[in-house]
């Protein structure tokens, strides 16, 4: 058995499954977040209107972020556009002296997402080996307590300079942690499903919170790209760390869905990953079905948006119509 690229039907199954997995949880979190919802992403519009932020850099948390170390190039380039980090790359950015203008968070997971902001309750959590295995922020793989404390201090030090683009779907703990760190919160709902259906999750979330619903692409990185496009009106958007895949030679143990893949495919799990040859890199990277769904979704969105998207990840599998695959230095030379 070797899983090939997925068909539209198969991608739809993942989309439906994601709705089932996240919508109810997201809506429950939205109810708990109500007391903290004071401003929405639409309140950002005056300061981030057309022409103000013509270019943006999205710092996603794929493995190339740590392989290519792009922060120095950004800091020395005097890039004037917005820097939008995803929650998973916040620690990397702060450790390397790059304070993002915005950080986006969306995943409703009850205990993991808080770690990207420094978890003040880590000592009381149940054991979870995810952070020892994950590749989004390898700094957290070891000495978890010490690195967590370092992150708490970094977020507390820089929080006042960072606006959180916070989805109503996230755990209430994220809102409290961000407020504790002095961050400004700008809320939004994920566009869960068809808003024209009266009982849709999108309608329910909107009626409950009065926050606008934004397209997500299924993950935080794509949500950040949508935010840059639709709210900041960025016309030139660079993507960093948007691998949506794993470099050749990565142990499957270090992939995002390792446990699920082993549960499903047993000792043949390795065969269930999808191999994609990247002609720009002349390398074959591999991805899991969910990341492949993210890839196809972002390609579809990029084709529909009236902005230019530059994949400056210098790794991964995100290439195709609507995406310009170029080195970061070329983007910075052009738009700094």
């Amino acid at each position, binding site marked *: 058995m070797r899983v090939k690229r997925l068909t539209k039907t198969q991608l739809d199954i993942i989309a439906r499954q994601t709705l089932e997995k996240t919508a109810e949880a997201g809506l429950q979190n939205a109810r708990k977040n109500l007391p903290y919802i004071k401003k929405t992403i639409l309140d950002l519009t005056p300061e981030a209107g057309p022409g103000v932020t013509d270019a943006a850099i999205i710092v996603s948390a794929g493995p190339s972020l740590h392989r290519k170390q792009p922060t120095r190039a950004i800091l020395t380039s005097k890039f004037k556009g917005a820097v939008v980090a995803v929650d998973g790359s916040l620690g990397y950015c702060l450790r390397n002296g790059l304070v993002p203008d915005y950080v986006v968070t969306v995943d409703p997971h009850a205990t993991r997402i808080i770690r990207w902001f420094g978890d003040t309750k880590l000592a009381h959590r149940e054991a979870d080996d995810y952070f020892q295995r994950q590749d989004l922020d390898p700094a957290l793989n070891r000495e978890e307590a010490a690195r967590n404390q370092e992150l708490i201090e970094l977020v507390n030090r820089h929080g006042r300079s960072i606006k959180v683009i916070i989805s109503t779907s996230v755990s209430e703990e994220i809102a409290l942690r961000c407020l504790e760190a002095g961050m400004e919160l700008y809320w939004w709902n994920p566009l869960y499903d068809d808003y*024209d259906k009266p009982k849709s999750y999108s309608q329910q979330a909107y009626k409950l919170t009065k926050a606008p619903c934004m397209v997500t692409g299924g993950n935080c990185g794509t949500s950040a790209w949508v935010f840059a496009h639709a709210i900041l009106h960025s016309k030139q958007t660079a993507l960093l760390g948007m691998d949506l895949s794993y470099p050749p030679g990565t142990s499957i143990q270090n992939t995002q869905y390792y446990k699920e893949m082993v549960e499903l495919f047993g000792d043949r799990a390795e065969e269930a990953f999808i191999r994609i040859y990247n002609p720009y890199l002349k390398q074959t990277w591999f991805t899991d079905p969910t990341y492949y769904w993210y890839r196809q979704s972002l390609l579809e969105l990029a084709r529909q948006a009236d902005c230019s998207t530059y994949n400056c990840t210098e790794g991964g599998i995100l290439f195709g119509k609507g995406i310009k695959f170029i080195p970061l230095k070329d983007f910075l030379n052009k738009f700094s």
Partner: protein
Amino acid sequence: MPKYLKGNYRLPKKVTTKDNKSQPTIEQKFEQESLRKLGGSIAFVMKSKTFVWKGDEGEKTD
């Protein structure tokens, strides 16, 4: 062996086999069941190029 099992009579009704082209194979079925367990971080849908939906009163932004 098959030559010994060849029928030496005609069936009263013509037997037609179903076209299996549109039926998923066992492997495809297994893959589809598997995909049901691999959801993403958050739900995603896109409708008529609307990136942000601002509610019933209706402004839609691109």
